[in-house]
């Protein structure tokens, strides 16, 4: 007797219901719960999520104080590599521009000029993207530097846990098989086919690559480029501005890192939804991930 036979006798599912169940990630057939994320990983994950949201938004508030990026140690005000500017028009309206080198784009409403409490303002990023919303550099800095501490301490604890528990070695280090499977994984992900059943117990090659590059690459890079912007830290560690090719280059890298985190977040959310949102979210809250039993294996 197959497991399907033990299901309640129900009418054939409608395609919509089937899709909804699939989206929730609850296997229709019999399933068991697999303890996927330890309490340490879960706590670090949600604290990190909060920190990254605050860091990105307060970072944009700080950026708005001088919405331009440069390379080198000093700012070549005539030639920023990226800048957000505003122009007051004769009829009183404001136009916002995004400049990339010598090229400019009209980005009124979002970048360069946008409405704050109904008033058109010259501001780099719009108020819905910054923390605090109104232009307030001093407060943006306070939020940023307070949550930087939480982010870094959380990151250090997670590093210690990952090394000590074997989480990094066991779950994040790609195996030879992972590397061999990489082209296949990319093709499968492109078709939005995700591992189910037993295969979902382990990270696949793409997941390992994505998580490892954020944990070991982007994370340390965003912290170090952030520290390089502090004049006192540059006195303590003159190697910092030297490594990154100057304080302004470090600031530019810091900005690129912030948007890399945002890109990671968007892909991460898309993957969570596409591969079964509720099952994924539950496993990151309670630790338990539902895995369907294949027919005939019950």
């Amino acid at each position, binding site marked *: 007797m197959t497991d399907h036979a033990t299901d309640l006798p129900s009418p054939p599912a409608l395609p919509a219901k089937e899709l909804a169940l699939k989206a929730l990630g609850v296997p229709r057939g019999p399933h068991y719960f697999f303890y996927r994320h330890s309490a340490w990983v879960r706590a670090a994950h949600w604290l990190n999520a909060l920190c990254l949201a605050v860091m990105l938004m307060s970072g944009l508030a*700080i950026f708005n104080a001088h919405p331009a990026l440069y390379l080198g140690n*000093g*700012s070549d005000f005539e030639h920023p590599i990226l800048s957000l500017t505003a122009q007051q028009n004769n009829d009183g309206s404001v136009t916002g521009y995004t400049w990339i080198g010598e090229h400019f784009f009209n980005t009124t409403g979002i970048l360069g000029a946008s409405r704050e409490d109904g008033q058109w303002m010259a501001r780099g990023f719009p108020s819905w993207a910054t*923390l605090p919303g109104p232009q307030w*550099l001093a407060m943006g800095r306070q939020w940023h530097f307070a949550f930087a*501490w939480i982010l870094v301490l959380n990151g250090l604890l997670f590093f210690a846990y990952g090394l000590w528990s074997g989480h990094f070695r066991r779950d994040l280090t790609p195996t030879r098989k992972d590397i061999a499977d990489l082209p296949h994984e990319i093709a499968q992900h492109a078709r939005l086919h995700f591992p189910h059943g037993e295969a979902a117990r382990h990270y696949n090659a793409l997941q390992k690559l994505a998580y490892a590059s954020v944990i070991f690459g982007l994370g340390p890079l965003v912290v170090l480029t952030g520290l390089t912007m502090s*004049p006192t*830290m540059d006195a303590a560690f003159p190697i910092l501005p030297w490594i990154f090719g100057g304080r302004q280059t470090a600031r530019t890298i810091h900005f690129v890192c912030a948007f890399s985190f945002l890109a990671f977040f968007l892909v991460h959310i898309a993957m969570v939804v596409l591969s079964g949102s509720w099952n994924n979210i539950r496993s990151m809250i309670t630790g338990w991930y539902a895995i369907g039993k294949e027919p005939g294996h019950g």
Partner: protein
Amino acid sequence: MAEQTRRSFAARTLAAAGTLSLGGCYDLSQKKWFTDILGSVEVLTRRAQHLFAGPHTLAPEYSKADIAPVFRANGTLDPGTPDYAAHVANGFRDWRVTVTGLVEKPLSLSMAELRALPSRTQITRHDCVEGWSCIGEWKGTPLALLLAAAVPKPAARYAVFYCADPMTAEGDPEHYYYESLPLSEAVHPQTILAYEMNGQTLPVAHGAPVRLRAERQLGYKQPKYLQRIDLVEDFSRIEGGKGGYWEDLGYTWYGGI
């Protein structure tokens, strides 16, 4: 765990996240208990940075080739008072820099006397709190020399710098730019009273006739149009009580980050 319980847990989590939405963060920014927490983080940051930087490490210095063709002038570009205009007109011959407060021997020096003292020349990077940087060459008297001559009393903890640029519109009670540094930073070898910039007499836009350079600090900690250096035990009864013009408006007193 029953499915129902799990769902309500998720709902509660989402609701908690909702309180941290945009409006919530803005409200928090105006709550005293919350800004007090942020203020204590500032102390943590300052102590941690001092732990790494110590009293003696030097800010990076650069070569003449790195000097910015255009060094942005920020804040006050001309104090604009009749008194200051008179000083400009006679080439700052009557300008005096005084050292007062908790010192054994108060000082009062003319620009000529200041220039006659040993000087330090440094090509350094000026970092504005807004995010930009400019490299320039500064020549001036190490503040440590002046303070050594004035002999600080044991109680002295901070140097408060008083400037000639008024910060309020006409008609308001007069507030001039002021700043403060801990004594340890005031006697740092790169903390100088600069009267030359890029080999020229200090221009008005950059703080003529003399400004502070404290190279491990952000720009707002390096006041221009400097007139008086007052050594104090604490600054809580000076102006807004936060130790500087921008600090009184909410910026952190610690300006090393």
